[in-house]
């Protein structure tokens, strides 16, 4: 019994010391998400993050609960604030924030508009679709009083009928757009909420949780049996794989209609959008910004990891440049309209 007790104590102490090592060396990051009964899975404030996938990201979540530099909800009249809403492409966890299109856009616009303060806020969330984007915009992004909102979309967003049981979801109730918050009563969400404290305090607990998730997927075979199970990763031109999107779901149409009523909201195509979608947006007179040639392989290849994936350094530069050109005109018109109104 004495030996068992000594073993347990020594085991726990060793684990605690290793936990300190893992946290200080940032081998992995503590969980950066929390469970909000309105927002669903959202970001914790003041959290550090280190991330390796195609690229290498080091940064964190600011005190206001979004990525990058922290600008408070309140802004003064001389500030032009642009909110970027979207998925992992907006999140930009493949490179340091200093090279992200968010920062490039902010710097370039500041150079073009010296009399105003330009703030570009990153509300990107990995895995979000347009449904998630809208709910996030209504419940969180709006609080920061953005002058312009850019929703980054892909073809998939428009005919997507997939829903999440961890976030609020839009639905139609007699042609009226509503948000369903029943996710916070679902088993998955409740379970996550119960385990959140451990995952937020311990990297090891986070790893155990991830391991449990992986065991449920087919990746276990690849982990244990290596090349006998591994899948080949091939580059797929986004537009090639999704060019056949012919319909837009009713919920998405309702979201677009609702968003249309807010001034200065734009949809930015992360990839070439299908003709059906483009025509629909034009018919609805929805502000749309197309990013030319951004689906090219050269903007998606990551030398170090040898993978294709999100926009690389050149991709971010190109997106930053194109958005600067477009938004400079938009902001110029906006400022002159504002001036006319004041006069």
């Amino acid at each position, binding site marked *: 019994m004495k030996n068992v007790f000594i073993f*347990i104590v*020594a085991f726990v102490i060793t684990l605690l010391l290793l936990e300190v090592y893992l946290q*200080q060396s940032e081998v992995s990051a503590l969980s950066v998400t929390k469970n909000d009964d309105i927002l669903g899975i959202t970001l914790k404030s003041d959290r550090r993050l280190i991330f390796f996938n195609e690229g290498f990201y080091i940064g964190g979540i600011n005190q206001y609960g979004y990525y990058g530099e922290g600008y408070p909800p309140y802004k003064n009249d001389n500030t032009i604030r642009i909110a970027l809403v979207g998925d992992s492409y907006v999140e930009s966890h493949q490179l340091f924030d200093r090279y992200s299109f968010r920062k490039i856009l902010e710097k370039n616009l500041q150079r073009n508009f010296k009399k105003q303060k330009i703030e570009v806020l990153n509300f990107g969330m990995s895995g979000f679709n347009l449904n998630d984007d809208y709910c996030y915009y209504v419940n969180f992004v709006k609080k920061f009083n953005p002058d312009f909102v850019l929703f980054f979309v892909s073809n998939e967003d428009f005919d997507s009928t997939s829903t999440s049981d961890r976030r609020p979801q839009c639905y139609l109730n007699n042609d009226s757009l509503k948000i369903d918050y029943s996710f916070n009563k679902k088993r998955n969400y409740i379970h996550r909420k119960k385990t959140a404290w451990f995952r937020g305090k311990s990297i090891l607990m986070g790893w155990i949780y991830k*391991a449990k998730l992986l065991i449920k997927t087919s990746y276990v075979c690849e982990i244990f*049996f290596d090349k006998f199970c591994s899948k080949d990763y091939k580059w797929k031109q986004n537009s090639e794989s999704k060019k056949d999107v012919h319909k837009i779901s009713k919920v998405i149409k309702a979201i677009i209609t609702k968003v249309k009523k807010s001034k200065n909201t734009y949809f930015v195509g992360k990839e070439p959008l299908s003709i059906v979608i483009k025509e629909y947006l034009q018919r609805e007179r929805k502000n749309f910004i197309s990013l030319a040639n951004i689906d090219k392989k050269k903007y998606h290849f990551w030398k*170090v990891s040898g993978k294709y994936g999100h926009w690389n350094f050149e991709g971010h530069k190109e997106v930053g440049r194109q958005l600067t050109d477009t938004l400079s005109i938009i902001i110029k018109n906006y400022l002159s309209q504002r001036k006319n109104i004041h006069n």
Partner: protein
Amino acid sequence: MLFNSFIFFIFLGIVLPLYYISTRNVKKIILLVASYIFYGYWDYRFTSLLLISTIVDYFVSLSLEKENNLLKRKKLLLISMFTNLGILGIFKYYDFFIESFSSFAELFGSNFDYLHLNIILPVGISFYTFQTMSYTIDVYRKKMHATKSFMDFALFVSFFPQLVAGPIERASNLLPQISKLTIPRKEQIKKGTVLIVFGLFKKVLIGDTTGRIVDHIFSQPHLYMSVELISALILFSIQIYADFSGYSSIARGTAKLLGVELMKNFEQPYLSRNITEFWRRWHISLSSWLKDYLYISLGGNRKGKSRTYVNLMITMLLGGLWHGASWNFVIWGGLHGVYLAIHKYSLGNKKIVKRNYHYDNPKGLIGFISKTLLTFILVLFTWLFFRATTFTIAFDFINRIIHWHSSEFALRFIKITFTFLIMIILFDCFEYKTGHHTFILLLKSKPIQYAVIVAMFLVTFLFMFHTKPLPFVYFQF
């Protein structure tokens, strides 16, 4: 297959029980088959090179054993050297020399790019060719008798724990053990297990994790700031040490589980007080190979002072080239050669104190720390050329450090680097003080021993479970 992959442990889980229950001869067959499966897992075609090297050196050494005529003995030795160095030369250095020659020829308007063959480098080729050559040279020098057993010799060449990244074993150590294979003693199993756990921890949770940062920064140094670059360089020095010494520990541990003792390849090299001591503690199997079969063959220090320095430089330049077919490795070797020559010159007739340092007073400790720190900085500078794949990258690095660029992540990078440094220094300090790589077994309390080992294994296992294993840095050599 990688030591830090689950498939390796599944493989070991099959080989070990079969090995334990078999008779001696069957043990050899099992190990030989397992070794070829292990090597063929990367690419089955390259097992043919392993076989060619084995067959040639087996028959050459048998002939050397019988032959007394000096000229004929030299010819036989040349056959072995020609075969092994020929295989190495073609698969490792052919494209490098064509590229270098082509670059030179372009100055005169010619182009030889069409001669490029884009040959795939077989894993571990530098290690096993050196290992077989050492055997043949020892037989030639009559330091040992040639083995008559082809099975024993084939197993000596292909022994899977050390096949692909060393230690480069001497036949005088490994062959007798192979000829008398037995099941391991209880002590060997304990030490073997600890070495595997420690090695995996070092490789996975220090080597791989530092490597992730290093790879990104070294690939595009112009995108990073000065503190980030310095951190990357220090992290690389940690990565290569943790990675390689971790691998060597796993190799030794696995061999112990088979009842075989392999040589130690590292003895806390970053605690060296001077560069000569560094080379007695770093990659010991290679440095001793270079000393015994290259430096001494060139004449060593027996042909006057100037010739000694020339021999030293040649050895270190070729030692650099052994690491990779690239001029930056030659520069790395050359820098070490210069350091060693300067240190040798400064010593005059004094000898180096070889063993562990014992300090009696604070002044002694300060002296020890300052000497190890200086040696570390000198070695750190050479790692820049070792890791940078081109001169442009190396000079970009230096340029961005000299022309200081501040970073918003400076404190964070310093903290990360410091944490990794402390972890690797802890391992080294315990080994240094105790003289044992399995220092945990010196604790009197067995429950504490088991608790630490189990905890370290569990954490390493969890990390391995959700990250893709990175290959060993030295696999590329």
